[in-house]
């Protein structure tokens, strides 16, 4: 049997030797590999910047959702004061839906933060490797005959090539995650802007009805009861 570890090892080795085959002699291999490393380091830095930007965007989104939640809360209170329990219920139902979205958004935010941490660690490791490679390559060039150099170069370049694959994968995963997050944030954005309770009295559109159908029932009931208590409408009514 050949499991995932066996397969990943084969694929990584195949990729690295393809990378090395592009250059003909040891010196060329060294210089080519070093160029690749610098490019890869740049990619990692860009990857980190992308993730950081996405994280900022999410934080803004989060802040605006919190405002929206507070607004719905206020509207529910107003509605209750005006003895419109139906509207208060509607507002609280929306609030509950929104809270679910916020929770899942925050969970993904955490994942993004983890990706960012991994990339930063990856960048540090890669920088250390590139630096080691830079000093070794001059030693190899100066000290070894062509045949010996070939072996030394192979060892050094394979090690770093493998690491570059690894870091490259981390970048790719971070980018996937970032795109997913942005799509998600966009969708929530749309939901809140089109579902905002600007006008209580208008009859609900399709989205409103869908939102109302969401079974956030018990939470809404609890909140309604709590609000009534606060407003002194509790058992007295």
């Amino acid at each position, binding site marked *: *049997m*050949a*499991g*995932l*570890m*066996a*397969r*990943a*090892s084969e*694929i*990584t*080795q195949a*990729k*690295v030797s393809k990378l090395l085959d592009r250059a003909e002699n040891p010196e060329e291999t060294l210089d080519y590999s070093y160029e690749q490393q610098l490019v890869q380091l740049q990619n990692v830095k860009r990857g980190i910047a992308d993730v950081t930007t996405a994280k900022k965007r999410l934080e803004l989104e989060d802040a605006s959702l919190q405002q929206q939640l507070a607004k719905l809360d206020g509207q529910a209170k107003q509605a209750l004061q005006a003895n419109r329990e139906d509207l208060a219920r509607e507002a609280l139902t929306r609030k509950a839906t929104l809270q679910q979205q916020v929770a899942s958004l925050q969970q993904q935010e955490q994942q993004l933060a983890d990706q960012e941490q*991994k990339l930063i660690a*990856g960048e*540090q*490791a*890669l920088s*250390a*490797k590139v*630096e*080691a*490679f830079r000093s*070794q390559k001059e030693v190899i060039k100066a000290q070894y005959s062509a045949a010996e150099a070939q072996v030394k170069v192979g*060892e*050094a370049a*394979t*090690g*770093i090539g*493998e*690491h570059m*694959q*690894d870091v*490259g*994968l*981390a970048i*790719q*995963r971070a980018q996937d995650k970032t795109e997913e997050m942005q799509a998600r944030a966009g969708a929530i954005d749309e939901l809140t802007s089109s579902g905002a309770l600007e006008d209580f009295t208008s009859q609900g559109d399709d989205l409103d009805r869908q939102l109302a159908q969401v079974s956030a029932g018990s939470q809404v009931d609890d909140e309604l009861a709590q609000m009534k208590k606060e407003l002194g409408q509790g058992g007295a009514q």
Partner: protein
Amino acid sequence: MIVRLMGEGQFEVDDSLKARLDELDDETERAAEAGDANALRAALRALHEEVRNAGQQLDHAHLGASDAVVPPEDLSLDDARKLLSGEDPFPDL
């Protein structure tokens, strides 16, 4: 032997660990073929833990190839299947 845990780095482990790692590796294959995401995650996690606990992490400045490469702990079922069928799940790298 040297093992790379993707996303974590390289570890030097005793050769005697190989049998245990191969055993866990077989589990990853069975889980992926059965389409069992939980079992896949568990097997990959066990591989990572085994290497991490028994091995010595190499300095980042170490330059050398690994004898084995362990995919990330959170590899998706989809990517696992691709790997097993000989397809490269990370073609852009």
